[in-house]
């Protein structure tokens, strides 16, 4: 996962940082910590890093019912700091934002929650690990509900945690914007999803991203396309394109045993194929992905073209299927597509 949430949080109407504007993002003048390369400190790094401006816990799950029907589930908790510290009670400058969504081939439902830190309504703990906002919870279970949908999934890791980028230091632009970034791409998921009043037992895989940063975007970067893919042979691929004056493309190949192989910038080629009109925007819902070093040449298709999260900051987030050299499934996120197309 990558910088997707930053703009989400900063542009969210109810979230206070909006007053600082996009330009303020590039500077570290307000006392926030800057991510630096180095080893992670587990389990502490599973918990929050209040000295950084922004952070998230992001899980996406590809699920299948007994009859083969496919579903996708998203569970996200963002932390946004108005000041680089934590305080007890109402005085806390930490704001929490939750997004949850459930997708089928024909339905996509999403919900949003906001809470402030310091009072226990939302937060995260490192050991034992738990992240929550109101009654949405992420630990070894992933639980959320919204208008017309709910899910309750048990998660169990079948592989190791993977550091993204350079040992967990993920560069986001040619100018050097970066974040700390690790993933758990090897979750097995099983449980129940509820859609329009029906309870459906499901099984599948899930992928968690953890990322925190303080100056994540270059000023000219307007949106991104981000992929997380689990191939049937056990390998994983994380890749993103940040669209700006010049596109910045980054990818990590993850072998079936969890060994990450960061790819040089531009190694992954992303080509939009089919566009669909989604919420009044032209958006690419089919892509060709090529990574010659790994012999990868696949086409991805959205399970549901209309996986549109119509939340305080709207974006596209939905399950995809991969066909070609490496069949599999995963999630695609697309942001920054304007009403009149890119």
């Amino acid at each position, binding site marked *: 996962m990558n910088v997707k949430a930053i703009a989400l949080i900063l542009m969210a*109407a*109810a979230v*206070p940082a909006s007053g600082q504007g996009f330009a303020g993002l590039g500077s570290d003048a307000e006392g926030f910590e800057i991510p630096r390369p180095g080893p992670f400190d587990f389990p502490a790094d599973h918990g929050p890093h209040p000295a950084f401006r922004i952070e998230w816990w992001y899980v996406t799950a590809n699920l299948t019912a007994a009859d083969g029907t496919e579903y996708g589930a998203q569970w996200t908790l963002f932390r946004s700091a*108005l000041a680089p510290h934590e305080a007890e009670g109402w005085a806390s*400058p930490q704001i929490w934002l939750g997004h949850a969504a459930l997708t089928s081939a024909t339905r996509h439902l999403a919900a949003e929650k906001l809470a*402030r830190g310091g*009072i226990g*309504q939302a937060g995260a703990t490192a050991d034992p690990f738990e992240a929550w906002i109101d009654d949405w919870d992420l630990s070894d279970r992933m639980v959320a509900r919204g208008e017309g949908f709910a899910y309750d999934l048990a998660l169990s890791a079948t592989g190791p945690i993977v550091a993204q980028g350079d040992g967990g230091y993920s560069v986001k632009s040619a100018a050097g914007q970066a974040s700390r970034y690790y993933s758990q791409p090897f979750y097995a998921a099983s449980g129940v999803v509820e859609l329009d009043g029906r309870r459906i037992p499901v099984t599948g895989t899930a992928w968690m991203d953890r990322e925190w940063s303080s100056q994540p975007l270059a000023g000219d970067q307007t949106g991104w396309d981000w992929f997380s893919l689990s191939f049937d042979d056990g390998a994983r691929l994380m890749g993103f394109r940040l669209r700006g004056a010049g596109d910045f493309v980054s990818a990590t190949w993850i072998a079936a045993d969890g060994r990450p192989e960061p790819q040089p910038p531009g190694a992954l080629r992303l080509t939009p194929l089919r566009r669909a009109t989604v919420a009044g925007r032209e958006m690419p819902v089919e892509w060709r992905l090529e990574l010659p070093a790994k012999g990868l040449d696949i086409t991805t298709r959205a399970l549901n073209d209309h996986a549109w999260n119509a939340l305080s900051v709207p974006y596209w987030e939905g399950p995809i299927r991969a066909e070609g050299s490496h069949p599999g499934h995963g999630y695609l996120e697309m942001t920054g597509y304007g009403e009149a197309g890119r």
Partner: protein
Amino acid sequence: MLTGLSALLSHWARHRVQAALLLIGLALATALWTGVQAINAEARASYDRAASALSQDRLPRLVAGRITLADYVALRRAGWPVSPVIEGEATIGGHPLRLIGIEPLTLPPGAAAAGDPGDFLTGGVILSAEPLDDPRARRADLPLGTALTDIGVAAGLLGPDISYLLLTEDRAPPPGYALIHPSTTDLSQLTESFHLNLAAFGYLAFGVGLFIVHSAIGLAFEQRRAMFRTLRALGLSARALTGLLLAELLVFALVAGAAGVALGWLIAAALLPDVAATLRGLYGAGVGSELTLRPVWWLSGLGIAVLGMLASAGQSLWRLWRLPPLTPAQPRAWARESARAMRGQALAGALLLGGAAGLLAVPGLWPGFGVLAGLLLGGAALLPMLMAWLTRVGQRLSRGPVAQWFWADTRQQLPGLSLALMALLLALAANIGVGTMVGSFRSTFTAWIDQRLAADLYVEAADEADAARLLDWLGPGATALPMIRTTDGGTEVVGMVDHPLFRRAWPLLRALPDPWARLDAGDVFVNEQMALRRGLSPGDRVEQGVVAGIYADYGNPMPQVILSFDRHRALYPLPVLRYALITDIPAAAIRAAFPRLVVEDRAAIRRASVAVFERTFAVTAALNVLTLGVAALAMFASLLTLSALRLPQIAPVWAMGLGRGRLAQLEFLRTLALAALVCGLALPLGLALAWVLLAVVNVEAFGWRLPMLLFPGDWLRLGMLSLLAAGLAAALPVRRLARMAPGALLKVFAHER
């Protein structure tokens, strides 16, 4: 054309008093009307602001005995869509304010006040309508007396406990919490009757003012009759002449209108603080006491001045339009014609009174005002006929030629004076009616509040722990009766213990047998306004139970239900913070021991309540006096008009040997007699008005019916006042007559047409 205009205008240069009267009359009428409009516009703007700024007031609330931060977080983590509010009285920058601390992130979008959310969440910002002397304060579009801030700031100022939770989705309350529905009535609905009252007064004053304008214009046209004839004979077309006169009137209307608007502004500015205090005391509505210049009302002020002028001049202009150029001016012919007009007018008056009686059967506030209007206009329209009849009676009863002439000549004057007399009648009747209403209300209200305030002291604690310490401290030295009240869905719900004190203080207007035992058993009492509004009688059922009794609750615009204390506790688990104390311990001793406690003694509460009441009617009283003043001016204008026209009637009497002094004396007496007759007729009309106000308008507007009490002393005072006004009005014309050169009287015969 220009010559024509200068000829027309030269008249005003020679008749300055007349011009002044015309201007003053129209300016006064416009001033009273625009003043009332300005007050109403200001108040309505405040209500709109209140409604738009605090939309969280429209969400249902959850209450419980005590809600801690942990309780709130537990509810959220169990999935309840609740948002916490900490609310209370705080003094910020020297201003006592209702401070509302909200949690913007859990409120539905759009519920929180606008502004920079980051600043609001962590900047410690306090938003308020008034400028506060505090670095945290920012101005915002909020109801007056209210400050909005983040819950964190409110927690710091008011304490950490949550006052109530807003339920942001439509759901049943969680266990242990009671649901309180938001009020369905808004301020503008609640206060509508109050503003309607003011508006009705504005129209009345305007109508009375137009009488002055009418008589001044009538005089000006009459005196220029010869000039019109000359101008027409010289070739000025009727169209051009009418156009010129219309232009002249328009100029007058705009000048007087502008002056009236300015005067109206002053009236409104003078009355607004009282109105604002009333609205705050009676309805809890925050209305600023500073007036904003709104184009709506000054434009409508000018418009109404022009309209009023046209309405007053319409008749005169119409006559002029139809005037053949060579017709002589014949006042006597007019008078004969007006006898026919008088009969028609009397018929219209009778119809109006009949209509008013018919309207009594229609429920509602507007029909109520319709009855008032019908009564006033009908009474005024009947007046000339009644006066003619009374002078005829006077003539029949009198002996001697001078007395007979006195009455006959009085009747002869009636057509010219009738408008002024009608204005006086309206002002007097309104005065008697409103005075009786206010007086009845005052006596009933003070007797009622003395009974209601039966305990020695009333205390309110900040929290339950404080209350418990107080009860401990008081020990056996006092009987403490808990009092509890909440507002649910726009209805006040009161919990009351059964104690002889309350039984005495809440006498029931109507009740089932043994009502207090029924209250204990689960029945309820409702206040009179609720019973009237919903057509309830003892034995009927409301949401909270069977109505066992109905009690008077003057001054409260809200419907109210009384439950037994225990049932209230069960339905609404609120902290009990207020107590009525029966004790000899002085208030000061309790205040000294418990500085955070609000302690009020009976006398202080009574004083405050009576003050609210008095302010409520201060505006009414002020408008009343102004209307009476306008009526006196109308009388003066009419008498001045008549004195100029009456020479042909007086000259022969003078020629027969009645001295000028004696004539002037008789003229003076005549005016007083007319005023006295009008006073006599105004009394029944005023009492009818009072009855409609008490039995129809008050019941519809406020929901309480008051006994009608009579105040003959007030009538006597009013009668003397109107005689004095009439005497003053007559003084100038009479003095002129007394000093008139005999030659002027002789000329009447020389100019005999």
